[in-house]
């Protein structure tokens, strides 16, 4: 336990001695407030093709669903957190200080979990501010109440925190920075979407990271659109809690894989 305490303190000090926390929170504000603010201020109905306005339930939901597109950002931050150790060859120094490599990974997960929660909080609050800024400037009332908007935003915030952990665990498995980034982006933007639309295979979608994220955030717009266009029944989405648990299971599975395989490799 003392080793884990030291490792957590060390990872916290390491994090605060770089500009990463500042850039992380600025990224969260950009992905949350700036993105929803720009769409809100210009008016979703002026987009091509036009989207429902912010004075409708669909309009607010559509703008909030944009947060889902930005979830790659915390995942990449988490990925870089651990692959940076290999890229800058600091990993030997870290493993000399903390020879139990599983302890190092656990400490990074805890510290970046906290950073992910901070990211999620800034993402959620700034998204709410962005949407309300849009409604105030356009002189309209939001189609959803504050509680509903805040609730959905917070769910995206929690998803962002878990995605940061996913990034850390994927980075621990891959070790190579470009490979880890490639896996992260490739999976979330290609494989996940392919599984969603392939008949027969898409029954697994709710249990894949993308489906679990949709369950957690309640973002079903894309699934409904595909179902309407193709006539195929959309995958059944789970509850938000189950979605979060499925995502956390992926974090645990990737971390266990890293502990058994990647972290045991020689540091040369």
């Amino acid at each position, binding site marked *: 336990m003392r080793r884990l305490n*030291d490792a957590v303190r*060390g990872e916290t000090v390491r994090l605060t001695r*770089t*500009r990463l926390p500042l850039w992380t929170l600025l990224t969260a504000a950009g992905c949350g407030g700036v993105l929803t603010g720009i769409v809100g201020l210009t008016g979703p109905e002026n987009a091509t093709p036009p989207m429902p306005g912010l004075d409708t339930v669909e309009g607010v939901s559509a703008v909030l669903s944009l947060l889902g597109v930005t979830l790659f950002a915390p995942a990449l931050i988490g990925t870089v957190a651990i692959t940076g150790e290999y890229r800058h060859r600091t990993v030997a120094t870290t493993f*000399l*200080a903390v*020879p139990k490599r599983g302890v190092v990974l656990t400490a990074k997960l805890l510290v970046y979990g906290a950073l992910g929660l901070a990211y999620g909080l800034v993402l959620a609050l700034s998204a709410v501010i962005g949407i309300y800024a849009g409604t105030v400037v356009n002189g309209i009332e939001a189609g959803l109440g504050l509680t509903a908007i805040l609730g959905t935003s917070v769910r995206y915030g929690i998803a962002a925190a878990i995605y940061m952990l996913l990034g850390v665990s994927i980075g621990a498995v891959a070790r190579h920075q470009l490979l880890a980034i490639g896996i992260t982006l490739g999976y979330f933007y290609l494989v996940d979407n392919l599984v969603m639309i392939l008949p027969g295979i898409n029954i697994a979608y709710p249990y894949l990271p993308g489906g679990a994220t949709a369950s957690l955030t309640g973002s079903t717009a894309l699934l409904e659109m595909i179902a309407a266009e193709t006539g195929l029944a959309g995958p059944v989405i789970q509850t938000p809690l189950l979605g979060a648990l499925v995502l956390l299971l992926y974090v645990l599975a990737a971390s266990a894989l890293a502990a058994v395989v990647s972290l045991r490799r*020689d540091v040369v």
Partner: protein
Amino acid sequence: MTAGTSAPSETLDGPVLRAEGLAKSFGPVPALSGVDLLALPGRVTGFVGPNGAGKSTTLRILTGLVRADRGTATIDEVPYAALSRPSQVLGVVGDLAGAHPGMTPRGHLQTQAALIGVPREWVGQVLHETGLHDVAGRRIRGFSTGMKQRLALATALLGRPSGLILDEPTEGLDPSGIVWLRRFLRTFADAGGTVLVSSHVLTELQQVIDDLVLIAGGRSLWSGSLADFTAEHASLEEAYLSMIEKEMACAG
């Protein structure tokens, strides 16, 4: 580095560093095929051999960074990873690029202090000891090789260990830094500490070591006191070259 400072003032209880029958291959490439090594408290042990002989691999196995296929490597009879506070037993200088380039020396050492569980106040002392106090707030990415070497030494000394493993520690150091290091290692060993130092600079090594381990082609060729090794030769360099030539002749 500040010459004349940092000599351990108290008696040290140095660890026994021991490797027996080490064998290691990286894929199909054999790196070690039978390395034995012993470094004792109160002694400076030189670890020498040609390029590719397996010195760095041996040191990495001793410190738990690389797993041996066969054989054992222990610090006071236990593997490095099993030590309760490893950085307070053994300081390791092994890689110039051991610190994030975007960090400052102070930030790097504060991180290390937290990781190894020593007071943050020790950071200032080790910065002064290694002559880095004036550049403690500068980003490491702008550092010369010598400055990075000083930082690697500072990292190794941070835990106030009673043993030191140094892989090519004089690389990039200026003459005053080399002299400081030589005096430091001598004083460290005289106080009871254990020093295992790998270097290709044999003339420098001869001035500080008591014992010698020579490896070539991944296996041990000689182990014992420097005096015995150089008994029939004018210098360590001459004795080394003589033994390596004999080995190559046998291998050829």
